[in-house]
């Protein structure tokens, strides 16, 4: 398991005249689980896409290892090391298997095989289905299996449980726990914060452009999530 640290600073983004993110700082480490909360339209998606190198911010600096550079100079590296999962996953035309094979084709160095991914995300029963026809929960599972195959340093998930039933949520949680255990850095934007209490190491709130660290003592509705985490195994 490799150790890493990505520190973003001064992330600022504006749509026309509206500032959605202002001087935000966020650090991601190996095996660290960060929960990102915020109201609709707060800028969570924007922030995750900037971190993934998919969307150009007005301004941002990134510290990787010991080297601090402008976002633009690190963009290629961010695209290599980070992976962003859309709230509504986009699966390519063709079967589930084709989607997984595609991931392997563009990641020839992957240390996982197709069979491992199928077993890991329990896709055996839908592997031959046309991906476009899957249910929302099944699509999420394929999307996370692609992340497993890609094996990035960090995954950024955009409301991965928004359309899932209870059983699927638990399943998603298990998969994320395994990824975290394997040393992957995880950032999740979610409106379902209590779901991740057992996994989260840090909780950030995006509000009126400001990204603030919710201190452990600022309990959410009486749940002391720091103690909750201590009790959970392996977290």
């Amino acid at each position, binding site marked *: 398991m490799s150790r890493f640290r990505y520190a973003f600073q001064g992330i600022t983004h504006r749509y026309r005249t509206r500032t959605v993110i202002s001087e935000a700082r966020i650090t991601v480490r190996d095996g660290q689980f960060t929960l990102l909360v915020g109201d609709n339209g707060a800028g969570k998606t924007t922030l995750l896409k900037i971190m993934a190198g998919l969307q150009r911010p007005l301004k941002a600096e990134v510290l990787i290892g010991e080297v601090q550079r402008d976002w633009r100079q690190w963009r290629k590296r961010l*695209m290599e090391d980070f992976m962003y999962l859309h709230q509504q996953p986009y699966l390519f035309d063709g079967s589930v298997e084709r989607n997984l094979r*595609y991931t392997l084709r563009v990641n020839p160095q992957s240390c996982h095989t197709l069979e491992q991914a199928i077993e890991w995300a329990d896709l055996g029963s839908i592997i031959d289905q046309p991906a476009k026809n899957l249910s929302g929960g099944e699509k999420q599972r394929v999307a996370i299996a692609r992340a497993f195959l890609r094996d990035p340093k960090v995954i950024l998930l955009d409301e991965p449980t928004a359309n899932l039933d209870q059983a699927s949520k638990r399943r998603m949680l298990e998969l994320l726990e395994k990824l975290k255990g394997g040393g992957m850095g995880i950032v999740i934007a979610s409106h379902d914060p209590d779901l991740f209490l057992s996994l989260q190491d840090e909780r950030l709130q995006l509000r009126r452009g400001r990204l603030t660290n919710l201190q452990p003592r600022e309990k959410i509705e009486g749940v002391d999530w720091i103690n909750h985490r201590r009790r959970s195994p392996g977290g």
Partner: protein
Amino acid sequence: MGNLSDALIEALKLLLTGDDATWTIIGISFRVSTLAILSAIPPALLTAFLLAHFRFPGRKLLISIFSALMSVPAVVVGLTLFVLLSRHGPLGDWRMLFTQTAMVMGQFLLSFPILVSMALAAFQSVDQRAWETARTLGADPMQAFFTLLHEVRFGLMTALLAGFGRIIAEVGASMMLGGNILNYTRNIPTAIALETSKGNFAQGIALGIVLVLLAFVLNAFLHALSHRNTPQEAV
């Protein structure tokens, strides 16, 4: 009416017995138009992709120019190239007037705006997430470009068939640039124009039948594709 039915029977004979003169003309038509469309596809796809994915000054203007060029009459395109290629024109040294190459150039120019406009529509119809997903899964820009091509392949096929349909049947540019030379630049439309004016209906009708059949086949393909094209996914 006896004349007409005789001509029709004669025409069918020409086609079915594999009449050399008739089939040579058909061969020239397909050869020239296939070469034209094949050489137009790569630059047209690239142009459409750039127009779909990048915002730059003059983009809107370019799009409306291509759209307007779709309906420029073939004779005007022929005339323009004729002036350029004629003995005293700027490209006169190429000695290309009245060759198949000149016809290919004319048909290239005729199909290019159609290919660009229709491929642009296809690229714009595909979800923004398709590109982002390919990139964040680790595809480089070239791989992501081909992924997009695959996602919109039915729309692109439609563009190709429409472009081919326009140039295989156009008479203006072929006549001016090819010169209607027997066994060299005489293609289906120019042969029909000539034979009919000479009162030789049989060959004209035979070639007309080929064009009508082709129109039906192309249309059947377009129809089938438009059904495959309807989105199965409601997001």
